Protein backbone atom coordinates (compact mmCIF):
# COMPACT_ATOMS: atom_id res chain seq x y z
CA UNK A 1 0.00 0.00 0.00
CA UNK A 2 1.31 3.48 -0.89
CA UNK A 3 2.35 5.67 2.01
CA UNK A 4 0.14 8.64 2.76
CA UNK A 5 2.93 10.24 4.69
CA UNK A 6 6.64 9.50 4.92
CA UNK A 7 9.54 11.13 6.67
CA UNK A 8 13.18 10.45 5.89
CA UNK A 9 15.71 11.32 8.61
CA UNK A 10 13.62 14.37 9.43
CA UNK A 11 15.56 16.54 11.85
CA UNK A 12 14.94 19.88 13.50
CA UNK A 13 17.29 21.97 15.60
CA UNK A 14 16.06 25.15 17.25
CA UNK A 15 18.53 27.89 18.11
CA UNK A 16 18.45 28.87 21.78
CA UNK A 17 20.15 31.61 23.75
CA UNK A 18 20.43 35.27 22.83
CA UNK A 19 24.12 36.13 23.03
CA UNK A 20 25.59 32.64 22.86
CA UNK A 21 23.52 30.91 20.23
CA UNK A 22 23.49 27.15 20.42
CA UNK A 23 21.12 24.63 19.00
CA UNK A 24 18.69 22.32 20.69
CA UNK A 25 17.61 19.19 18.80
CA UNK A 26 13.83 18.91 18.89
CA UNK A 27 13.58 16.06 16.40
CA UNK A 28 16.30 13.59 15.58
CA UNK A 29 16.35 11.71 12.25
CA UNK A 30 12.74 10.60 12.25
CA UNK A 31 11.96 8.02 9.59
CA UNK A 32 8.34 6.98 9.46
CA UNK A 33 5.69 5.70 7.04
CA UNK A 34 1.95 6.09 7.47
CA UNK A 35 -0.14 3.95 5.13
CA UNK A 36 -3.17 5.23 3.31
CA UNK A 37 -6.45 4.63 5.07
CA UNK A 38 -5.04 3.95 8.51
CA UNK A 39 -5.45 5.78 11.79
CA UNK A 40 -1.94 6.34 13.05
CA UNK A 41 -1.17 7.50 16.57
CA UNK A 42 1.91 9.61 17.19
CA UNK A 43 2.58 9.30 20.89
CA UNK A 44 4.97 10.80 23.36
CA UNK A 45 5.18 12.86 26.50
CA UNK A 46 5.19 16.64 26.46
CA UNK A 47 8.36 17.94 24.83
CA UNK A 48 8.98 14.73 22.89
CA UNK A 49 8.88 16.52 19.52
CA UNK A 50 5.37 15.59 18.37
CA UNK A 51 4.22 19.12 17.61
CA UNK A 52 7.54 19.94 15.95
CA UNK A 53 7.06 16.93 13.66
CA UNK A 54 3.55 17.99 12.73
CA UNK A 55 4.69 21.56 12.09
CA UNK A 56 7.48 20.22 9.88
CA UNK A 57 4.90 18.26 7.92
CA UNK A 58 2.83 21.42 7.50
CA UNK A 59 5.97 23.48 6.64
CA UNK A 60 5.23 25.82 9.52
CA UNK A 61 8.83 25.18 10.51
CA UNK A 62 11.65 24.22 8.17
CA UNK A 63 13.73 21.09 8.68
CA UNK A 64 17.39 21.25 9.62
CA UNK A 65 17.87 17.95 7.82
CA UNK A 66 15.95 15.18 6.11
CA UNK A 67 12.67 15.52 4.27
CA UNK A 68 8.99 14.69 4.40
CA UNK A 69 6.57 13.57 1.72
CA UNK A 70 2.81 13.73 1.91
CA UNK A 71 0.62 11.91 -0.63
CA UNK A 72 3.72 11.36 -2.75
CA UNK A 73 4.76 15.01 -2.94
CA UNK A 74 7.07 17.19 -0.85
CA UNK A 75 5.50 18.54 2.33
CA UNK A 76 4.35 22.14 1.92
CA UNK A 77 3.45 21.71 -1.75
CA UNK A 78 0.23 23.61 -2.56
CA UNK A 79 -1.31 20.56 -4.25
CA UNK A 80 -0.68 18.62 -1.05
CA UNK A 81 -2.27 21.33 1.08
CA UNK A 82 -5.41 21.16 -1.08
CA UNK A 83 -5.78 17.49 -0.13
CA UNK A 84 -5.08 17.55 3.59
CA UNK A 85 -6.55 18.99 6.78
CA UNK A 86 -4.62 20.18 9.82
CA UNK A 87 -5.69 20.87 13.38
CA UNK A 88 -3.07 22.67 15.49
CA UNK A 89 -2.70 22.03 19.21
CA UNK A 90 -4.99 24.33 21.25
CA UNK A 91 -6.27 26.02 18.13
CA UNK A 92 -6.97 29.73 18.22
CA UNK A 93 -9.21 31.30 15.65
CA UNK A 94 -10.25 34.88 15.01
CA UNK A 95 -12.28 36.21 17.94
CA UNK A 96 -14.18 38.65 15.77
CA UNK A 97 -15.57 35.97 13.46
CA UNK A 98 -18.52 33.69 14.04
CA UNK A 99 -18.00 29.94 13.59
CA UNK A 100 -19.86 30.16 10.30
CA UNK A 101 -17.79 33.10 9.05
CA UNK A 102 -14.56 31.32 10.00
CA UNK A 103 -15.43 28.24 7.99
CA UNK A 104 -16.61 30.33 5.05
CA UNK A 105 -13.30 32.25 5.23
CA UNK A 106 -11.23 29.07 5.29
CA UNK A 107 -13.27 27.62 2.43
CA UNK A 108 -12.41 30.81 0.52
CA UNK A 109 -8.71 30.03 0.95
CA UNK A 110 -9.37 26.81 -0.97
CA UNK A 111 -10.88 28.89 -3.77
CA UNK A 112 -14.46 27.65 -3.47
CA UNK A 113 -17.26 29.88 -4.79
CA UNK A 114 -19.58 31.78 -2.42
CA UNK A 115 -22.47 29.28 -2.47
CA UNK A 116 -20.15 26.29 -2.05
CA UNK A 117 -18.37 27.97 0.87
CA UNK A 118 -21.63 28.48 2.76
CA UNK A 119 -22.84 24.97 1.97
CA UNK A 120 -19.68 23.33 3.24
CA UNK A 121 -19.56 25.49 6.37
CA UNK A 122 -23.15 24.69 7.26
CA UNK A 123 -22.77 20.93 6.68
CA UNK A 124 -19.60 20.66 8.74
CA UNK A 125 -20.94 22.67 11.66
CA UNK A 126 -23.92 20.32 11.71
CA UNK A 127 -21.53 17.35 11.69
CA UNK A 128 -19.55 18.55 14.71
CA UNK A 129 -22.66 19.53 16.63
CA UNK A 130 -22.42 23.34 16.50
CA UNK A 131 -26.05 24.44 16.19
CA UNK A 132 -27.42 27.92 16.87
CA UNK A 133 -24.06 28.98 18.33
CA UNK A 134 -22.62 29.14 14.82
CA UNK A 135 -23.68 32.80 14.59
CA UNK A 136 -21.91 33.74 17.82
CA UNK A 137 -18.46 35.29 17.74
CA UNK A 138 -15.77 32.75 18.58
CA UNK A 139 -14.69 34.81 21.62
CA UNK A 140 -17.84 33.47 23.29
CA UNK A 141 -16.99 29.81 22.63
CA UNK A 142 -15.77 27.36 25.27
CA UNK A 143 -12.55 25.42 24.66
CA UNK A 144 -14.49 22.31 23.75
CA UNK A 145 -16.62 24.19 21.23
CA UNK A 146 -13.51 25.76 19.71
CA UNK A 147 -12.02 22.30 19.35
CA UNK A 148 -15.15 21.19 17.48
CA UNK A 149 -14.86 24.21 15.18
CA UNK A 150 -11.20 23.28 14.75
CA UNK A 151 -12.15 19.76 13.67
CA UNK A 152 -14.78 21.18 11.30
CA UNK A 153 -12.24 23.49 9.61
CA UNK A 154 -9.91 20.56 8.95
CA UNK A 155 -12.67 18.89 6.93
CA UNK A 156 -13.62 21.89 4.80
CA UNK A 157 -11.88 20.43 1.70
CA UNK A 158 -12.91 16.76 2.18
CA UNK A 159 -9.28 15.84 2.91
CA UNK A 160 -7.58 12.56 2.04
CA UNK A 161 -5.27 12.94 5.02
CA UNK A 162 -5.91 14.57 8.38
CA UNK A 163 -3.07 15.70 10.60
CA UNK A 164 -4.36 16.40 14.09
CA UNK A 165 -2.28 17.73 16.97
CA UNK A 166 -3.79 16.57 20.28
CA UNK A 167 -7.36 16.50 18.92
CA UNK A 168 -8.86 15.44 22.26
CA UNK A 169 -7.20 18.23 24.18
CA UNK A 170 -9.63 20.23 26.31
CA UNK A 171 -12.61 18.04 25.54
CA UNK A 172 -14.99 16.57 28.11
CA UNK A 173 -15.80 12.84 27.90
CA UNK A 174 -18.70 13.47 25.53
CA UNK A 175 -16.55 15.65 23.33
CA UNK A 176 -13.83 12.98 23.25
CA UNK A 177 -16.38 10.39 22.25
CA UNK A 178 -17.65 12.63 19.45
CA UNK A 179 -14.14 13.27 18.10
CA UNK A 180 -13.40 9.55 18.24
CA UNK A 181 -16.50 8.81 16.25
CA UNK A 182 -15.60 11.51 13.69
CA UNK A 183 -12.12 9.96 13.30
CA UNK A 184 -13.53 6.47 12.89
CA UNK A 185 -16.13 7.59 10.36
CA UNK A 186 -13.41 9.37 8.38
CA UNK A 187 -11.34 6.19 8.44
CA UNK A 188 -14.35 4.28 7.13
CA UNK A 189 -14.57 6.76 4.25
CA UNK A 190 -10.93 6.00 3.38
CA UNK A 191 -9.35 9.08 4.95
CA UNK A 192 -5.94 8.62 6.57
CA UNK A 193 -5.69 10.11 10.07
CA UNK A 194 -2.35 10.93 11.67
CA UNK A 195 -2.77 12.31 15.15
CA UNK A 196 -0.55 13.12 18.06
CA UNK A 197 -1.57 12.46 21.61
CA UNK A 198 -0.24 11.82 25.04
CA UNK A 199 -3.58 10.28 26.02
CA UNK A 200 -2.82 6.64 25.44
CA UNK A 201 -6.35 5.34 25.77
CA UNK A 202 -7.27 7.35 22.65
CA UNK A 203 -4.54 5.58 20.71
CA UNK A 204 -5.61 2.21 22.07
CA UNK A 205 -9.18 2.84 20.96
CA UNK A 206 -8.48 4.31 17.53
CA UNK A 207 -5.14 3.36 16.08
CA UNK A 208 -4.12 0.55 13.83
CA UNK A 209 -0.48 1.56 14.32
CA UNK A 210 1.40 3.88 16.60
CA UNK A 211 4.82 5.49 16.82
CA UNK A 212 6.31 6.48 20.14
CA UNK A 213 8.60 9.46 20.38
CA UNK A 214 10.78 10.35 23.35
CA UNK A 215 13.21 13.28 23.48
CA UNK A 216 12.95 13.77 19.75
CA UNK A 217 13.72 10.16 18.85
CA UNK A 218 11.52 7.40 17.60
CA UNK A 219 11.59 4.62 20.17
CA UNK A 220 8.96 2.30 18.74
CA UNK A 221 6.70 1.99 15.74
CA UNK A 222 4.27 -0.67 14.68
CA UNK A 223 0.98 -2.36 15.38
CA UNK A 224 -0.20 -2.20 18.94
CA UNK A 225 -0.12 -5.98 19.13
CA UNK A 226 3.49 -5.98 17.96
CA UNK A 227 4.63 -3.31 20.37
CA UNK A 228 2.79 -4.53 23.42
CA UNK A 229 3.56 -7.89 24.98
CA UNK A 230 0.07 -9.19 25.43
CA UNK A 231 1.18 -11.95 27.70
CA UNK A 232 -0.14 -11.97 31.25
CA UNK A 233 2.17 -10.44 33.82
CA UNK A 234 0.15 -11.63 36.81
CA UNK A 235 -3.40 -12.06 38.07
CA UNK A 236 -5.97 -9.76 39.53
CA UNK A 237 -8.33 -11.67 41.79
CA UNK A 238 -11.34 -10.23 43.60
CA UNK A 239 -12.63 -12.30 46.50
CA UNK A 240 -15.64 -11.89 48.78
CA UNK A 241 -16.61 -13.17 52.25
CA UNK A 242 -12.98 -13.85 53.05
CA UNK A 243 -11.87 -13.88 56.71
CA UNK A 244 -8.83 -11.69 57.46
CA UNK A 245 -6.68 -14.72 58.26
CA UNK A 246 -7.46 -16.26 54.87
CA UNK A 247 -6.58 -13.02 53.12
CA UNK A 248 -3.29 -12.89 55.00
CA UNK A 249 -2.49 -16.42 53.84
CA UNK A 250 -3.61 -16.06 50.23
CA UNK A 251 -2.15 -12.60 49.98
CA UNK A 252 1.23 -13.54 51.38
CA UNK A 253 2.65 -13.69 47.85
CA UNK A 254 0.53 -10.83 46.49
CA UNK A 255 2.13 -7.73 45.02
CA UNK A 256 -0.76 -5.63 46.29
CA UNK A 257 -3.85 -6.17 48.42
CA UNK A 258 -6.65 -3.59 48.36
CA UNK A 259 -9.66 -3.76 50.69
CA UNK A 260 -12.75 -2.88 48.63
CA UNK A 261 -15.26 -2.98 51.48
CA UNK A 262 -18.15 -5.33 52.33
CA UNK A 263 -15.64 -8.14 52.91
CA UNK A 264 -14.30 -7.85 49.36
CA UNK A 265 -10.61 -7.65 48.52
CA UNK A 266 -8.64 -7.11 45.34
CA UNK A 267 -5.35 -9.05 45.17
CA UNK A 268 -2.65 -8.50 42.56
CA UNK A 269 -0.83 -11.80 42.34
CA UNK A 270 2.25 -12.99 40.44
CA UNK A 271 1.99 -15.55 37.63
CA UNK A 272 3.07 -18.31 39.97
CA UNK A 273 1.24 -20.08 41.64
CA UNK A 274 -1.06 -21.02 38.72
CA UNK A 275 -4.81 -20.05 38.78
CA UNK A 276 -6.07 -23.53 39.63
CA UNK A 277 -4.07 -23.57 42.85
CA UNK A 278 -5.21 -20.06 43.73
CA UNK A 279 -8.86 -21.03 43.31
CA UNK A 280 -8.49 -24.07 45.52
CA UNK A 281 -6.73 -22.04 48.22
CA UNK A 282 -9.56 -19.48 48.23
CA UNK A 283 -12.20 -22.20 48.38
CA UNK A 284 -10.36 -23.91 51.28
CA UNK A 285 -10.39 -20.60 53.17
CA UNK A 286 -14.19 -20.41 52.81
CA UNK A 287 -14.12 -17.36 50.56
CA UNK A 288 -15.74 -16.78 47.17
CA UNK A 289 -13.94 -15.80 43.99
CA UNK A 290 -15.76 -12.89 42.33
CA UNK A 291 -13.37 -12.56 39.40
CA UNK A 292 -9.95 -13.67 38.24
CA UNK A 293 -8.34 -11.77 35.37
CA UNK A 294 -4.88 -11.77 33.83
CA UNK A 295 -2.94 -8.52 34.11
CA UNK A 296 -1.57 -7.66 30.68
CA UNK A 297 0.88 -5.00 29.65
CA UNK A 298 -0.93 -1.89 28.49
CA UNK A 299 0.23 0.76 26.09
CA UNK A 300 0.63 2.97 29.11
CA UNK A 301 3.06 0.54 30.76
CA UNK A 302 5.05 0.31 27.56
CA UNK A 303 5.03 4.06 27.11
CA UNK A 304 6.35 4.67 30.62
CA UNK A 305 8.99 1.95 30.21
CA UNK A 306 10.27 3.33 26.91
CA UNK A 307 10.33 6.92 28.04
CA UNK A 308 12.09 6.00 31.29
CA UNK A 309 14.66 3.94 29.38
CA UNK A 310 15.26 6.80 26.95
CA UNK A 311 15.61 9.31 29.75
CA UNK A 312 18.06 7.13 31.66
CA UNK A 313 19.94 6.46 28.43
CA UNK A 314 19.60 2.66 28.64
CA UNK A 315 18.01 0.73 25.80
CA UNK A 316 14.96 -1.30 26.77
Amino acid at each position, binding site marked *: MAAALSTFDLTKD*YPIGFWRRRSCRALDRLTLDVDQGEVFGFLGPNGAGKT*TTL*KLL*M*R*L*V*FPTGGRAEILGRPAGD*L*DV*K*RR*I*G*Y*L*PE*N*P*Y*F*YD*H*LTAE*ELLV*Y*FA*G*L*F*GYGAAERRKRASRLLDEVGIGGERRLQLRKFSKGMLQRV*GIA*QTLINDPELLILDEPMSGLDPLGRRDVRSVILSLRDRGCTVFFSSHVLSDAETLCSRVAILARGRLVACGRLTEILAFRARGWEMIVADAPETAIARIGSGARRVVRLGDGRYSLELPLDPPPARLLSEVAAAGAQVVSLNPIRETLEDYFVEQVAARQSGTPS
Partner: protein
Amino acid sequence: MRPVLAIAVNVFRESVRDKVLYNLLLFAVVIMAGSYLIGQLTAGQDVKIIKDLGLAATQIFGLFIAIFIGIGLVSKEVERGSIDSVLAKPIERYHLILGKYLGLTLTLALNVAIMAAALYAVLTYVRWGIDPAIERAWDAPALDARLLQAVLLILVELLVVTAIALVFSTFSTPLLSAALTFALVVVGHFSGDLRNVQDVVKSSAAQWAARGVYWVVPNLAQFDVKAQVVHGQTVPAGYLALTIAYAALYVAMLIALASLVFSRRDFK
Protein backbone atom coordinates in the same frame (compact mmCIF):
# COMPACT_ATOMS: atom_id res chain seq x y z
CA MET B 1 -5.74 35.87 -6.33
CA ARG B 2 -8.88 34.55 -4.65
CA PRO B 3 -7.11 33.62 -1.38
CA VAL B 4 -5.54 37.10 -1.27
CA LEU B 5 -8.99 38.68 -1.56
CA ALA B 6 -10.39 36.32 1.10
CA ILE B 7 -7.59 37.36 3.48
CA ALA B 8 -8.11 41.06 2.64
CA VAL B 9 -11.84 40.83 3.35
CA ASN B 10 -11.09 39.13 6.67
CA VAL B 11 -8.66 41.91 7.67
CA PHE B 12 -11.22 44.53 6.67
CA ARG B 13 -13.91 42.75 8.67
CA GLU B 14 -11.62 42.48 11.70
CA SER B 15 -10.78 46.19 11.46
CA VAL B 16 -14.37 47.37 11.18
CA ARG B 17 -15.26 45.25 14.21
CA ASP B 18 -12.41 46.75 16.23
CA LYS B 19 -13.55 49.31 18.82
CA VAL B 20 -10.19 51.10 18.69
CA LEU B 21 -10.88 52.07 15.10
CA TYR B 22 -14.22 53.66 15.99
CA ASN B 23 -12.70 55.54 18.91
CA LEU B 24 -10.02 57.00 16.66
CA LEU B 25 -12.51 57.82 13.93
CA LEU B 26 -14.92 59.45 16.37
CA PHE B 27 -12.11 61.47 17.91
CA ALA B 28 -11.00 62.70 14.47
CA VAL B 29 -14.54 63.74 13.52
CA VAL B 30 -15.00 65.51 16.88
CA ILE B 31 -11.79 67.46 16.30
CA MET B 32 -13.03 68.51 12.86
CA ALA B 33 -16.32 69.65 14.34
CA GLY B 34 -14.37 71.40 17.11
CA SER B 35 -12.33 73.25 14.50
CA TYR B 36 -15.52 75.18 13.70
CA LEU B 37 -15.49 76.59 17.24
CA ILE B 38 -11.80 77.44 17.03
CA GLY B 39 -12.45 79.10 13.67
CA GLN B 40 -15.00 81.41 15.33
CA LEU B 41 -12.21 82.85 17.49
CA THR B 42 -10.26 84.07 14.48
CA ALA B 43 -11.29 87.01 12.32
CA GLY B 44 -12.00 85.87 8.76
CA GLN B 45 -9.72 82.85 9.01
CA ASP B 46 -12.30 80.31 10.10
CA VAL B 47 -12.42 78.38 6.81
CA LYS B 48 -8.65 78.19 6.61
CA ILE B 49 -8.40 77.00 10.23
CA ILE B 50 -11.06 74.36 9.65
CA LYS B 51 -9.24 73.08 6.55
CA ASP B 52 -5.89 73.05 8.39
CA LEU B 53 -7.21 71.22 11.40
CA GLY B 54 -9.39 68.89 9.34
CA LEU B 55 -6.53 67.75 7.11
CA ALA B 56 -4.15 67.46 10.07
CA ALA B 57 -6.70 65.32 11.96
CA THR B 58 -7.16 63.12 8.88
CA GLN B 59 -3.40 62.63 8.67
CA ILE B 60 -2.68 62.09 12.38
CA PHE B 61 -5.57 59.75 13.11
CA GLY B 62 -4.94 57.95 9.85
CA LEU B 63 -1.35 57.43 11.03
CA PHE B 64 -2.61 56.06 14.35
CA ILE B 65 -4.88 53.61 12.54
CA ALA B 66 -2.15 52.59 10.07
CA ILE B 67 0.40 52.04 12.84
CA PHE B 68 -1.79 50.42 15.49
CA ILE B 69 -3.56 48.05 13.12
CA GLY B 70 -0.55 47.58 10.85
CA ILE B 71 1.82 46.43 13.59
CA GLY B 72 -0.55 43.64 14.60
CA LEU B 73 -1.34 42.43 11.10
CA VAL B 74 1.07 39.51 11.17
CA SER B 75 2.51 39.48 14.70
CA LYS B 76 -0.91 38.99 16.32
CA GLU B 77 -1.55 35.98 14.11
CA VAL B 78 1.79 34.51 15.11
CA GLU B 79 1.38 35.26 18.83
CA ARG B 80 -2.12 33.83 19.04
CA GLY B 81 -1.35 30.86 16.81
CA SER B 82 -4.07 31.46 14.22
CA ILE B 83 -1.26 31.54 11.64
CA ASP B 84 -0.96 27.72 11.90
CA SER B 85 -4.48 27.12 10.62
CA VAL B 86 -4.20 29.75 7.89
CA LEU B 87 -0.83 28.62 6.51
CA ALA B 88 -2.05 25.02 6.47
CA LYS B 89 -4.45 26.07 3.72
CA PRO B 90 -3.32 26.07 0.07
CA ILE B 91 -1.78 29.53 0.09
CA GLU B 92 1.76 30.78 -0.27
CA ARG B 93 3.13 32.82 2.60
CA TYR B 94 3.33 35.94 0.45
CA HIS B 95 -0.40 35.62 -0.22
CA LEU B 96 -0.96 36.31 3.47
CA ILE B 97 1.26 39.40 3.36
CA LEU B 98 -0.49 40.74 0.25
CA GLY B 99 -3.95 39.98 1.65
CA LYS B 100 -3.16 41.65 4.97
CA TYR B 101 -1.83 44.74 3.23
CA LEU B 102 -4.77 44.94 0.86
CA GLY B 103 -7.23 44.53 3.74
CA LEU B 104 -5.73 47.39 5.71
CA THR B 105 -5.59 49.50 2.54
CA LEU B 106 -9.36 49.08 2.21
CA THR B 107 -9.85 50.00 5.87
CA LEU B 108 -7.69 53.10 5.57
CA ALA B 109 -9.37 54.19 2.34
CA LEU B 110 -12.78 53.95 4.01
CA ASN B 111 -11.59 55.85 7.09
CA VAL B 112 -9.93 58.60 5.12
CA ALA B 113 -13.09 58.89 2.99
CA ILE B 114 -15.21 59.25 6.15
CA MET B 115 -12.87 61.87 7.60
CA ALA B 116 -12.82 63.79 4.30
CA ALA B 117 -16.63 63.67 4.18
CA ALA B 118 -16.76 64.99 7.76
CA LEU B 119 -14.43 67.85 6.79
CA TYR B 120 -16.59 68.78 3.80
CA ALA B 121 -19.69 68.58 6.02
CA VAL B 122 -18.19 71.09 8.49
CA LEU B 123 -17.14 73.36 5.60
CA THR B 124 -20.63 73.17 4.08
CA TYR B 125 -22.11 74.25 7.41
CA VAL B 126 -19.67 77.19 7.69
CA ARG B 127 -20.43 78.31 4.13
CA TRP B 128 -24.18 78.19 4.72
CA GLY B 129 -25.70 81.68 4.35
CA ILE B 130 -22.35 83.42 3.86
CA ASP B 131 -22.42 86.49 1.64
CA PRO B 132 -20.77 85.61 -1.75
CA ALA B 133 -18.72 88.80 -1.47
CA ILE B 134 -17.13 87.52 1.74
CA GLU B 135 -16.55 84.14 0.17
CA ARG B 136 -14.69 85.75 -2.72
CA ALA B 137 -12.30 87.34 -0.22
CA TRP B 138 -11.16 83.92 1.02
CA ASP B 139 -7.88 82.42 -0.29
CA ALA B 140 -9.86 79.51 -1.69
CA PRO B 141 -13.53 78.52 -1.76
CA ALA B 142 -14.81 76.61 1.26
CA LEU B 143 -15.78 73.54 -0.71
CA ASP B 144 -12.53 73.43 -2.64
CA ALA B 145 -12.05 70.24 -4.66
CA ARG B 146 -8.28 70.74 -4.34
CA LEU B 147 -8.59 69.55 -0.74
CA LEU B 148 -9.02 66.10 -2.26
CA GLN B 149 -5.47 66.31 -3.63
CA ALA B 150 -4.17 66.66 -0.08
CA VAL B 151 -6.50 63.88 1.10
CA LEU B 152 -5.26 61.61 -1.70
CA LEU B 153 -1.61 62.16 -0.75
CA ILE B 154 -2.44 61.62 2.94
CA LEU B 155 -3.91 58.24 1.97
CA VAL B 156 -0.83 57.41 -0.11
CA GLU B 157 1.41 58.33 2.84
CA LEU B 158 -0.66 56.08 5.10
CA LEU B 159 -0.17 53.21 2.66
CA VAL B 160 3.61 53.69 2.88
CA VAL B 161 3.43 53.76 6.69
CA THR B 162 1.26 50.62 6.68
CA ALA B 163 3.86 48.83 4.58
CA ILE B 164 6.58 49.87 7.06
CA ALA B 165 4.48 48.58 9.98
CA LEU B 166 3.85 45.37 8.05
CA VAL B 167 7.57 44.74 7.58
CA PHE B 168 8.24 45.13 11.31
CA SER B 169 5.17 43.03 12.07
CA THR B 170 6.68 40.04 10.25
CA PHE B 171 9.56 39.62 12.69
CA SER B 172 8.97 41.79 15.74
CA THR B 173 6.60 42.23 18.66
CA PRO B 174 3.75 44.76 18.35
CA LEU B 175 5.33 47.13 20.89
CA LEU B 176 8.72 47.18 19.18
CA SER B 177 7.05 47.41 15.77
CA ALA B 178 5.05 50.44 16.93
CA ALA B 179 8.16 52.15 18.28
CA LEU B 180 10.20 51.46 15.13
CA THR B 181 7.41 52.48 12.76
CA PHE B 182 6.72 55.65 14.71
CA ALA B 183 10.45 56.51 14.69
CA LEU B 184 10.63 55.98 10.93
CA VAL B 185 7.56 58.16 10.40
CA VAL B 186 9.12 60.99 12.41
CA VAL B 187 12.47 60.66 10.61
CA GLY B 188 10.63 60.34 7.29
CA HIS B 189 8.99 63.72 7.78
CA PHE B 190 12.36 65.37 8.35
CA SER B 191 14.43 63.31 5.92
CA GLY B 192 14.77 66.31 3.58
CA ASP B 193 16.94 67.94 6.24
CA LEU B 194 19.33 64.96 6.16
CA ARG B 195 20.18 65.81 2.57
CA ASN B 196 21.72 69.10 3.66
CA VAL B 197 23.40 67.78 6.76
CA GLN B 198 26.86 68.70 5.40
CA ASP B 199 25.94 72.34 5.96
CA VAL B 200 25.78 71.87 9.70
CA VAL B 201 27.96 68.80 10.43
CA LYS B 202 31.71 68.67 9.74
CA SER B 203 32.34 64.96 10.42
CA SER B 204 32.45 63.03 7.15
CA ALA B 205 31.30 59.83 8.93
CA ALA B 206 28.21 61.62 10.20
CA GLN B 207 27.59 63.04 6.73
CA TRP B 208 27.79 59.56 5.20
CA ALA B 209 25.49 58.15 7.88
CA ALA B 210 22.96 60.94 7.34
CA ARG B 211 23.10 60.43 3.58
CA GLY B 212 22.59 56.69 4.05
CA VAL B 213 19.54 57.28 6.24
CA TYR B 214 18.23 59.77 3.70
CA TRP B 215 18.30 57.15 0.93
CA VAL B 216 16.75 54.39 3.04
CA VAL B 217 14.04 56.26 4.93
CA PRO B 218 10.99 57.29 2.89
CA ASN B 219 10.68 61.01 2.30
CA LEU B 220 7.24 61.48 3.83
CA ALA B 221 7.40 65.26 3.56
CA GLN B 222 6.74 64.78 -0.15
CA PHE B 223 3.20 63.71 0.67
CA ASP B 224 2.42 66.84 2.67
CA VAL B 225 0.64 69.37 0.43
CA LYS B 226 -1.79 70.57 3.09
CA ALA B 227 -0.43 74.14 3.23
CA GLN B 228 -0.66 74.53 -0.56
CA VAL B 229 -4.26 73.38 -0.94
CA VAL B 230 -5.43 75.32 2.11
CA HIS B 231 -4.11 78.47 0.41
CA GLY B 232 -5.87 77.53 -2.79
CA GLN B 233 -2.83 76.46 -4.78
CA THR B 234 -3.26 73.56 -7.16
CA VAL B 235 -0.82 70.68 -6.80
CA PRO B 236 0.53 69.96 -10.30
CA ALA B 237 -0.67 66.65 -11.78
CA GLY B 238 2.94 65.73 -12.58
CA TYR B 239 3.93 66.13 -8.92
CA LEU B 240 0.96 63.99 -7.83
CA ALA B 241 1.83 61.24 -10.33
CA LEU B 242 5.51 61.25 -9.42
CA THR B 243 4.80 61.14 -5.68
CA ILE B 244 2.32 58.30 -6.11
CA ALA B 245 4.82 56.39 -8.28
CA TYR B 246 7.51 56.93 -5.60
CA ALA B 247 5.12 55.55 -2.97
CA ALA B 248 4.17 52.59 -5.15
CA LEU B 249 7.82 51.69 -5.66
CA TYR B 250 8.58 52.04 -1.97
CA VAL B 251 5.53 49.98 -0.97
CA ALA B 252 6.45 47.28 -3.51
CA MET B 253 9.94 47.03 -2.05
CA LEU B 254 8.63 46.90 1.51
CA ILE B 255 6.09 44.20 0.68
CA ALA B 256 8.78 42.19 -1.10
CA LEU B 257 10.97 42.54 2.00
CA ALA B 258 8.10 41.56 4.33
CA SER B 259 7.35 38.52 2.14
CA LEU B 260 11.01 37.49 2.13
CA VAL B 261 11.33 37.72 5.92
CA PHE B 262 8.00 35.98 6.43
CA SER B 263 8.76 33.17 3.99
CA ARG B 264 11.82 32.12 6.03
CA ARG B 265 10.28 32.22 9.48
CA ASP B 266 9.68 29.21 11.67
CA PHE B 267 6.34 29.30 13.50
CA LYS B 268 7.19 27.26 16.59
